[in-house]
């Protein structure tokens, strides 16, 4: 009888732990909508990474709430680029509003969000970090090139919000955790 009681307690404990674990390890689904937060060209790199590991992904630099409906996962690539914003003909504030709108649309349809921060140090700092914080806090999983996490910016958010985080040395190394995080 005592043995059964112990088994029940272990099973109950496992049930409590599972949601925390699955928060970071639960697989994401395809197709993926990739969008920028800050209009850097890192979106192109993210699309190439997805292509290399055969993930069904579509990159839309300035995705809107309307683009979200056809996807099952939203991948946001944050990082400010004055050149990119200039090319898009929009202000930083307009870009921020767009990103908030896309995140809200994704959350409304219970879509999960991945953040891919691959731009390292040049995509950190005052101009980028508002985008980085907004996206990181809305995500369920992040892959970050270590150089962009020198000050534990992403690690701290991940720990505080219990978000899955993989740190990689190089952009190319992001391919492996990216591939592993999706159902085939």
């Amino acid at each position: 009888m005592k043995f059964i009681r112990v088994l029940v307690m272990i099973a109950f404990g496992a049930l409590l732990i599972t949601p925390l674990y699955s928060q970071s390890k639960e697989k994401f689904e395809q197709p993926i909508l990739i969008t920028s937060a800050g209009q850097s060209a890192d979106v192109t790199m993210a699309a190439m990474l997805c292509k290399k590991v055969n993930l069904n992904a579509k990159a839309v630099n300035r995705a809107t709430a309307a683009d979200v409906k056809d996807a099952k996962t939203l991948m946001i690539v944050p990082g400010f680029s004055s050149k990119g914003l200039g090319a898009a003909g929009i202000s930083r504030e307009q870009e921020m509003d767009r990103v908030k709108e896309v995140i809200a649309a994704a959350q409304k349809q219970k879509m999960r969000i991945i953040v891919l921060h691959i731009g390292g140090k040049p995509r950190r700092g005052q101009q980028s970090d508002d985008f980085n914080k907004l996206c990181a806090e809305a995500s369920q999983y992040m892959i970050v090139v270590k150089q962009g996490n020198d000050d534990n910016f992403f690690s701290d958010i991940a720990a505080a919000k219990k978000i899955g985080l993989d740190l990689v040395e190089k952009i190319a190394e992001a391919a492996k955790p990216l591939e592993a995080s999706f159902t085939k």
Partner: protein
Amino acid sequence: MEKHHYIAVVFLLAGGILSAIASKDFLSMRDADILHPSQFVTTTGMLSDYLPEIKGTYGDTKVYYFNSGNPGATVILLGGTHPNEPAGFIAAAVLVENAQVTKGRLIVIPQSCASGFTATDPLEACPTHFTINTQSGPRTFRYGARGGNPLHQWPDPLVYRHYPSGQQLSGMESRNLNRSYPGRVDGSFMERNGFAIVQLIKKENVDVAFDLHEAAPEVMIINAIITHEKGSDIAANAVLNLEFEDLQYSLEISPKNFHGLSHREWGDSTMTFAFLMETSNPSQGRLRGVTSEALVVEGNDPFYKTASKLDNVRITYDSSGEPLSLRVARHLQGFKRLVESYNEAHPENSAIIENIPEYNAVVSDGVGKYLK
């Protein structure tokens, strides 16, 4: 003669001597740099072959052709668009003196803005020349200006209106080759040069085009590849492959609304995939100290080291600085990987370019080892 007459004569003579020395220095920049083409260069020509209107002007410049005789892609590489960015010119010179093409064709213009090699930028205190120790001993090359020589296109307008977009830029940009594309035959001196280059790209059916540049260590776009959106997948693939070799390049897509630049206008007005590469050149920067030949070649500046410690530069600027050999090596390796990436995407129409020195070899041996 009275005493004051003698004094006047002495001052006149001294002035004459100083003027003669300055004139010699000034005029020395009109002496062409000499390259020693590889045995694999099949022909040489002039840019004016594509636009006779520039023949005999300071805009005309040498063009080197490597024709493998085997069908394949045509690749063009431009150095010296900005003559104060020497890594582009020297990388092009290394190709002219070493490359071998076994499939397709390679065209190299080492000094694309020939006019800019005949002067330095006023008030910048730049050296007129720099020296590299090569296989045959020291060789001296000109260190020019960002734009064309004002003697060849004068005066600068208050506002430069780019043709045909109408985009307005500061007047001095009217002498900037990389704001002149696609140019026009009846335009300014620099617009004609830009037009001639675009004509070359069109007439030779160039598939892949490169424009090599440098920028100050403190600017956003350094150690970067900038491409027209047509080439974004090729560039992204190359950036990933370069990363496997521990070479970091940031990728930038050419803004659609920023006109006159090679990566925008070549891509828009021709069939070519256009790429521009930037390295980090401390002799161009605003934070630099003495602008000497040594700074151009060795790339070592104490003020940039301080700036790096204060986190004010975009690169890790350590005790080894940013020597010319490293900057040339980056251009050559980037060029190589971009051509490979193009070939991967277009196996039916590829180009094979050999004898390009490896990055590590150029950095450790010095670029001079690859100049004859």
